[in-house]
């Protein structure tokens, strides 16, 4: 394989992987705290992309302003989901919340069909992000390919700082360890959980916006497959661990892009790799790369 093609694949894998990672972080935070697979997370991601579409194409706002508004609106949606569909079920068996999550995911997807219709919509691509840069050795890159991983790493870095260097972060880690004890230490658990949902949704919105820029269109079911894959990335990296989610996302991105790059005949099976990878890791290291071992107490 020629160098310039390889570099393009590499950048492509890096940006796809960091998008998976960004969504996976949201899954991992919620799961770490509530032991809940937030099935609606992929649909929150979709909402982020749609809000930008509405702001820029329907209301003709400036792209930058549209992005900010979209992130805020998506975050509000994430908080609403928690408030309406999950909070009443905190004391219920975990499966109830899981079914509720499936219901919410259904709801958002189909509500999007009702409001936005099922037709794929175009996306505004700021020219500055799309103009290819040529290097002397023949490598051509579009700035978006570089911007995506940079933004993703900065955001996850900021999240790690918040988790490990601030009081709310400490509270969040404490809740994932033992929710009841943390409550007794005077932490308002529901606020911290809402914070986790809000942060996760904001990151998902950013990921959704960048995803829509890569494949320049939005549609109501665009969050389904990336959502499931990002969850797999989170499990792969060790669910509950933020760096693990990012690493899992990157590995998944590289496996998907590189396998098709080197074995083009397998392109039809591209989506199967993620699941195969998942089943293998679950069998050999059930708690993922960076996950902690849990033991059933007898």
């Amino acid at each position: 394989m020629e160098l310039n093609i390889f570099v393009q694949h590499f950048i492509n894998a890096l940006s796809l992987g960091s998008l998976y990672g960004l969504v996976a972080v949201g899954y991992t935070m919620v799961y770490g705290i509530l032991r809940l697979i937030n099935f609606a997370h992929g649909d929150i991601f979709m909402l982020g992309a749609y809000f930008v579409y509405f702001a820029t194409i329907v209301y003709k706002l400036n792209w930058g302003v549209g992005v900010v508004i979209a992130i805020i609106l998506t975050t509000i949606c994430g908080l609403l989901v928690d408030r309406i569909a999950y909070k009443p079920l905190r004391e219920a068996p975990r499966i109830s919340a899981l079914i509720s999550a499936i219901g919410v995911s259904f709801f958002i997807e189909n509500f999007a069909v009702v409001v936005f219709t099922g037709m794929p919509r175009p996306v505004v691509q700021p020219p500055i992000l799309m103009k290819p840069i040529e290097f002397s050795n023949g490598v051509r890159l579009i700035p978006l390919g570089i911007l995506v991983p940079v933004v993703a790493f900065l955001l996850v870095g900021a999240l790690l700082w918040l988790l490990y260097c601030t009081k709310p972060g400490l509270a969040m880690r404490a809740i994932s360890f033992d929710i009841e004890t943390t409550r007794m230490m005077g932490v308002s658990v529901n606020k911290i959980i809402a914070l986790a949902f809000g942060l996760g949704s904001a990151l998902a919105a950013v990921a959704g916006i960048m995803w829509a820029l890569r494949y320049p269109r939005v549609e109501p079911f665009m969050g389904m497959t990336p959502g499931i894959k990002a969850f797999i990335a989170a499990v792969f990296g060790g669910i509950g661990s933020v760096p693990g989610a990012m690493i899992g996302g990157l590995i998944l991105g590289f496996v998907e892009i590189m396998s098709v790059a080197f074995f083009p005949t397998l392109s039809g099976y591209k989506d199967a790799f993620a699941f195969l990878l998942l089943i293998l890791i679950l069998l050999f290291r059930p708690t993922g790369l960076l996950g902690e071992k849990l033991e059933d107490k007898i």
Partner: protein
Amino acid sequence: MRNVRNLILTIIAVVLFAFFLDKAPELLNGYWQRILNLIAINAILALSLNLIYGITGMFSLGHAGFMAIGAYVSALLVLSPAQKNSMWILEDIYPWLLNVNAPFIVSLIIAGLVAAFFGLLVALPVLRLGGDYLGIATLGFAEIIRILITNTARLTNGSLGLKGIPAYTTLFMSWSCLGIVLLCTVCMLRSNFGGVLRAVRDDEVAAKMMGINTFKIKVIAFTLGCFGGGLGGALMGNLITTIDPRMFMITQTYNVLMIIVVGGLGSVTGSLIGSVLVTTMLEWLRFVENPITIGSINIPGIPGMRMVIFSLLLIMVIIFRREGIMGMREFSWNIFFPKKKITDVGSKTETVLELENVKLKFGGLSAIDNLSMKIKHWEIVGLIGPNGAGKTSAFNVISGFYKPTSGTIKFLGKSIGGLSPDEVCKAGMSRTFQNIRLFGNQTVLQNVMIGSRIRQKYSWWMTLLPFVFTDVIKEDAEARAQAMNLLDQLGLDAFADEKASSLPYGAQRRLEIARALATRPRFLLLDEPAAGMNPQESEELMKFIRRLRDEFDLTILLIEHDMKVVMNVCDYIHVLDQGVHIAEGTPAEIKANPRVVEAYLGAGAAEGGAA
């Protein structure tokens, strides 16, 4: 008497319904016939997923994959060679597949079997996972199956799918299939094997201690459920007459999941009611997506609205009535009628249990260090020590939950170190748990009957047809009689039909012992039997333990913090401290032992605490 009456009522109901189905093609239009068909198919799918998830407690999201397998297998078998020839456009069909053909009923059975075979392949690796991980792994498998179908065009015609499948799924076919599936499911769930399935769901650890190979049970239930998934998929394909890979996305699994959640997880009746409600509702809601004309006003249909309403209803059910319509209850004719109510002597071996230099390490931490002890037949032995001394760890090693890092454990002369809990149980040992582990959702009687499953000879598949294999009915009746006998001896007979979790605390402790005794152990381990009891209750407990030993010819090892109980009831005592065996002797000797006093009171810690 009551059973005969119920049987007659059931037969009358079935005959009436069959009569209705027979006349249905004349009475109902195509739309309602289709809904009736879908109800039956959805009920089969719901029953099979309920068996996997509601009854046995395995969270599986893979049903759509097994449905796809069933639908494709059946369709490929019933399509004629001419149809196949004209359908494979992009790639050629495999020559051997072109002429394969089978009658519809045969194709249904093969569809179920192939799905079950794939289910077995999936089960063997992934059922080692639990909880959400299992759900995600099964979801992954379903997706892989779908992607395989899309990409093996020579076998499945890829993403184009199969068209023109003969519409063999008549009302008679779909409802007969449901009838058979329902009969087999109900028979199996009513046998003691059904109790075992629920026991695995309620508490896997305790089920193992009842001598049950829980992994095997889970594989059986999962495979059976996949058979149902394949069968349902096959019927669906022959009803709709067109199938393609996009039909079997995760949404399909969610539909079935919704049915069993709305009906009530773990309830067969609930699955049936859920199928009727959800199917009718989904079809009825189609009106919101069609344009409506009222007088001169035209309301355009709103695509997607149907699922919006439906998902809102699902969320509301789960928030406001999360146990579903039936909870875990079942329908019984009795609701229409007002209400009108053993011991083994083993041969005497001198040493029952012998531990030699047993060590147990977790990473660098040593939970038990060089434990050696001998327990003789007919003895009641106490194992005491301060918190964290390794008492429960010792129990877990003896009963097979932990594998000793080194050392030997001999039970009745045989080495049992490294055996699994169910094998240890079969060797003649049983135990109770510090935090009571009953099968809370089952009745007191069922809890005890599960303990007798290891002595029953019939195989699980016989429970599908108990009228043919009458051993099932006979052996279950024996197990019931023996269980009642045990409950009688332990003074629990009045509670026989109560839910185990509804019993008062002391009775729950006794029930746990009754359940352990039902496996007919020679050796019983009691983990803090007096925990949470008041002085009067522990007084009774002491008498009870001695009586147990005498009546059931047992050897007993017990962990206890209540010193009064230990000193009064035990013949011999072993003391652990921080994993080290620091003393043994008769109660009088232990009371006078300075090391024991130090371990408990902490005086002279440098000497007493072993590093």
